[in-house]
């Protein structure tokens, strides 16, 4: 779906991105992860041509993006920013109608689609006539997402979409987003510097440092088969939690059908401590997980 080849971008004398290549398949979630200043935003913005690379090329569905007028290209790619980038002089309804208007949708279609998304994103319809400043941070972020989803673009670029939120809101919104059917089918490239977030949201993770890719792979590959010391050091601090998040329940307990990570199951078990009906206990789960780890490391 998206293919980047040998991207290079230099700002003055400093190299923000050097020789980056990756591929994202349709419907896949790729996370660009790394410390501040490692070139994540630069990489992301090259995809919708907000930044033009010095060399290298990007293909969208096999077509070089340079063959398309940037404005037209961008209208077909959802873009969510850290500080939501809502227009302060537009109401919420007007904000989310921006791209559809650019694409000359009629008012009625816009209204229907807005209602649909408001519903899905659990936004109160009364917010529509408010201005962004009257919204909470979480609401603003949801509106920002709604705006990018309005015309149902197949590709979504997100630059630290939860960056401005407090920890708790962030964890909740993240969870909701993962459940959202609108997002499930989409090809998403998301930037974050939060390792937990990357492991929760990503099908694959692209770990960057100083403008270069250190490793690109599934969460499990990064955890259990780090390409170099940088990768293992980067993940070490939160390794156990990350392992719980990246290993699927069915990998440790093949007889269970549920499509959950070990972490999700643990949370569920801890929440319904008292219910006896569960087929596994916390102890059984932990035992199975440590057996799984020994196999993988051995």
């Amino acid at each position, binding site marked *: 779906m998206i293919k980047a080849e040998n991207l290079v971008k230099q700002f003055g004398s400093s190299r923000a991105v050097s020789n980056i290549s990756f591929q994202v398949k349709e419907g896949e979630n790729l996370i660009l992860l790394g410390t501040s200043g490692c070139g994540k935003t630069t990489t992301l913005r090259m995809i*919708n041509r*907000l930044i033009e690379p010095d060399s290298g090329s990007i293909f969208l569905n096999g077509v070089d993006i340079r063959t398309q007028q*940037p*404005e*037209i*290209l*961008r*209208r*077909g790619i959802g*873009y969510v*920013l*850290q*500080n*939501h*980038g*809502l*227009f*302060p*002089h*537009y109401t919420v309804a*007007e904000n989310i109608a*921006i*791209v559809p208007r*650019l694409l000359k949708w009629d008012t009625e279609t816009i209204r229907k689609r807005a209602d649909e998304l408001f519903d899905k994103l659990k936004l109160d319809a009364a917010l529509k006539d408010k201005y962004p400043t009257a919204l909470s941070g979480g609401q603003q972020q949801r509106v920002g997402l709604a*705006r990018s989803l309005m015309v149902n673009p197949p590709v979504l*670029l997100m630059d630290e979409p939860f960056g401005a939120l407090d920890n708790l809101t962030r964890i909740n919104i993240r969870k909701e987003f993962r459940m959202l059917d609108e997002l499930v089918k989409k090809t998403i490239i998301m930037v974050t510097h939060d390792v937990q977030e990357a492991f929760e949201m990503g099908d694959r993770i692209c770990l960057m440092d100083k403008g270069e890719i250190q490793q690109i792979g599934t969460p499990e590959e990064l955890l259990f088969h780090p390409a170099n010391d940088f990768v293992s050091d980067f993940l070490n601090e939160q390794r156990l939690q990350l392992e719980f998040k990246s290993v699927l329940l069915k990998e440790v307990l093949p007889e269970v059908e549920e499509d959950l990570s070990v972490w999700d199951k643990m949370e569920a078990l801890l929440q319904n401590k008292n219910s006896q009906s569960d087929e596994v206990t916390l102890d059984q789960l932990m035992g199975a997980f440590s057996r799984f780890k020994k196999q993988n490391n051995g």
Partner: protein
Amino acid sequence: MDETQSFWQFVSQQSDKLWSQTWAHIGLTMISLILAIIIAVPIGILIARKQKLSGIILGIAGVLQTIPSIALLGVMIPFLGIGPKPAILALFLYALLPILRNTYTGITEVNPAVVDAAKGMGMNKWQILTKVELPLAFPVLMAGIRTATVINVGVATLAAYIAAGGLGEFIFGGIALNNSNMILAGAIPAALLAILLDFLLSLLQKINLKSIRVAWLILPFTFITMSSFYLLPTQIGGKMLAGFTPEFMGRQDGYLGLKSVYGLGIETVVISDAVMYKAAFEHKLDVISGYSTDGRLKAYDLVTLRDDRHIFPPYYAAPIVRNDVLKKYPELEGVLNQLSGSINDSVMTDLNFKVDQLKQSPEKVAKDFMMDKNLYKPARNGTKGTIRIGSKIFGEQYILVQMYKILILGNTDLAVSTKTGLGGTKICFDALTNNQIDFYPEYTGTGFLVLLKPDIITINQLNGNRDQVYHYVSQAFDQKFNLKWLKPIGFNNSYALMMRREQAQSLSIESITDLTKHLNQK
């Protein structure tokens, strides 16, 4: 009570003039403002994009702002002549900076994340500008336009100095003629106009720009501009054009007398003394109301027309001093009178020429002259007290002030401070009676007609007789204001009509009667 009544009387009497001045004022302000908006907003946007240019462009606009208005108007006469054109250009230049700066600030202060989002959503540059940047910068931009409007309403009063009309005609005429009603009749509408325009713009500032199409804004704009041109005074090409100062226009011994005594029918515009001579030289005007000792007479090769029916009363210069000062320092009178009899008309014209045209300093010209006449003595640096000398705002008075300074310092133990440039007659006279200065050089004719305002019978009785006028003002000032006229210096700086020498010669015009005859020929 009396004052209020006569103000309304004045307004109702002059209502035609007041309306035409007000409309001209609005016209000048609006045209220049709109031109400034048309130019400054795009440039403001441009320098917000190219930050490197911003320093130099804002710098240039800032420098323009600091040029004194009269100087700016004077500089433009050779290119644009007199009338609304240079006035509009000057006002336009003054309006540039606030609009430019606020457009720039408004645009650069738009949150970059918002612009980034707009770009990322696929808006093109024009859409970003008109739908995001301009609407968000609009309140700041409007604040700049409001500032410019208020400045322009104020500066537009100076348009009266270059024959462009406007409320300045009343204001400066009133100051020159010591007529408070006339001043107020110009100043009050000007102030109201500033308040009104500012208020209207403040309403505009609040509108939500995103819901309005740009075309809807351009439409009223063009309408206002077009109608503004209609408001400006139109110049009909007559045989000859006269430029008179606001003061001259309103005086019995000026334009009024020319009309009633000579029956002179000439098309007139109001213009400042500062640019009048040059405008005549540049063929922008044919007849002007000058002063007979003005140095520019010599510089621009102008000739004075003989006042064969004696409407211009004598204007012999003499210091007027408060009686209490003379009592306190009895030596002063004799010292000041030393100058008496030493300067005649041509000497004064020559001294003025040195200051106005050769750009010698009044100090130097005064000192040279005093040395020449053996009146110079080195300063005694006394500390007995300080004499404050005032002067009106032109070269001749500066020179006289310096001469008196030399006399006082050299002959008494008094110190001197000078307060030069006290605007017109009224300002100088008020400064004297309010004990802000101790004396200043005044002219008998001004004292007689402007400060005493005698009735027409008295004027006709004295009929321009030098000694009788001097006698009359001496007595009246002593009684009414407790001021003393010292001995006249000698020269007579009276009003005179002037023309370019070659034109006067080719038309064989030597006197005002000749001029009237020429104009009455078909």
